[in-house]
């Protein structure tokens, strides 16, 4: 007899606990204010999806005169744990005929970057920063290798040096 009672008590208990869970889902089903799902590709242009500090990629900010802060010192290349950065420098004639070393190409391999942030932290002139772009899908792997300094750009400090001298 007690077995039968236990059998039905178990069923009742089961229904009760299931009801407890269903109540929660029911509550959210009926309260549209609690919806947290975002329709991703649609909201992309309407609102900001990532925070300002988001580590999307390493970029080199340029000002309106197409000038950047990179001296080509190569510290970031040395610190990068994966070899994602290659610095190629060139020599250009400076003021009084002396050759000075400037950055030619700051090559950044996005595909090898682990977003550790060391390059940005160690750069003595704060030439690098985080970009917020996170949609990195491309059709070819070679497109993930970028040259960070824009063509025709120059080091900001170079003019200052010249101005100071003249």
């Amino acid at each position, binding site marked *: 007899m007690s077995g039968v009672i236990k059998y039905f008590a178990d069923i009742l208990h089961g229904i009760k606990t*299931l009801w407890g869970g269903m109540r929660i889902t029911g509550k959210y089903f009926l309260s549209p204010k609690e919806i947290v799902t975002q329709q991703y590709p649609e909201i992309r242009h309407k609102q900001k999806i990532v925070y300002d500090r988001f580590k999307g990629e390493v970029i080199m900010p340029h000002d309106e005169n197409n000038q950047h802060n990179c001296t080509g010192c190569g510290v970031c290349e040395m610190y990068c744990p994966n070899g994602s950065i290659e610095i190629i420098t060139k020599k250009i004639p400076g003021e009084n005929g002396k050759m000075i070393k400037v950055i030619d190409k700051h090559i950044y391999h996005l595909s090898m970057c682990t977003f*550790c*942030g060391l390059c940005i932290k160690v750069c003595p002139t704060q030439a690098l920063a985080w970009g917020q772009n996170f949609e990195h899908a491309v059709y070819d792997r070679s497109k993930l290798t970028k040259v960070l300094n824009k063509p025709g750009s120059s080091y900001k400090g170079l003019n200052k040096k010249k101005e100071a001298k003249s």
Partner: protein
Amino acid sequence: MDTKLKNYIVKENGDIILNMGPQHPSTHGVLRLEVVLKGETVKQVVPHIGYIHRGIEKMCEYDTYKQIIHLTDRMDYLSAHMNNEAVCLLVENALGIEVPERVKYIRVVLDELTRIASHQLWWSAYGMDLGALTAFFYGMRDRERILDIFEESFGSRLLHSFNTPGGLMHDVHPNFQKHTMEFVKYFRKKLPEYHQLLTDNVIFRNRTQGIGVMSKETAIAYGVTGPSGRGSGYSCDVRKIAPYGVYDQLEFEEIIYDEGDSFARYMVRMKEIEQSLNIIEQAVDKITDGPYTAKVKPIIKLPEGEYYQRVETARGELGVYVVSDGKKFPYRMHFRSPNFNNLFVLNTIAKGHLIADLVAISGSLDLVIPDIDR
């Protein structure tokens, strides 16, 4: 008959050898379990590891101590912050660097936020393993809030190489304290839902209670630590037995359950979430103004010798062992990862259970495969 096409082998004595993984949704990673079955009963489980071995320990020998930090993220990715902290503490203790008070409290808050996020993800995935898909969405919904706090402060959500020997990479966001407190308040309200959805569910209880019982002796013999060990009554919380950071100045309980079954391990994690919330509440108020890093030389060189540091990650005790020969790279680096030990107890505790329970047992150990292989 072409036996090659079959994905299992039948031995002469009737035993079936079945491969679970390496691509199996409930091993949560590339882990292959070779299961010897008698009918539906598990006779033996042989874990095969190495599918995601990246040689992190070897890579460390060619990296400076600052560069090593980002590699430790990628071991136990769900406790990335604690892994970072282990290496940082080791370097700081070896060189006698005094870390600012502010950093210590921020680290504790981040530790506990990471622990909660990790347990939430585990809770969601464990529910899913056992067929309760609803749980997954609720866990992920609340985890998102923690990830938002992370993203606001350090720009990354999972692998935030935010620690550096001597302090932090940069300062936390000005809103960090406010948003953390908001999360604690929010999550305290939501936590009872977790219990209603899963803990009290009769199907869930029947599938976990009395399943995969691990005795205290087994836990100690295999070196099972973390919530899995504490579910068997083994007091192994590094935060209590060998406090690091400011854990000795904070009040919290070490959760211990004596049953040793899957449900006990589940309950330890659920109670740990509450304790973590308590710790965060205490620590957030104590974050004072100050520098976010101590003064450290650009090139760190540890004096010759051996060093060891252990921390409590979300899965157990992580030990970092370094042999230094005085150069800027470590001579040898070894990680004692909690998941490695937690995995190999599986054979002992799963023996005699049904194959369906194997998922419940391996899930309750909360394995993260990249941490096993390193």
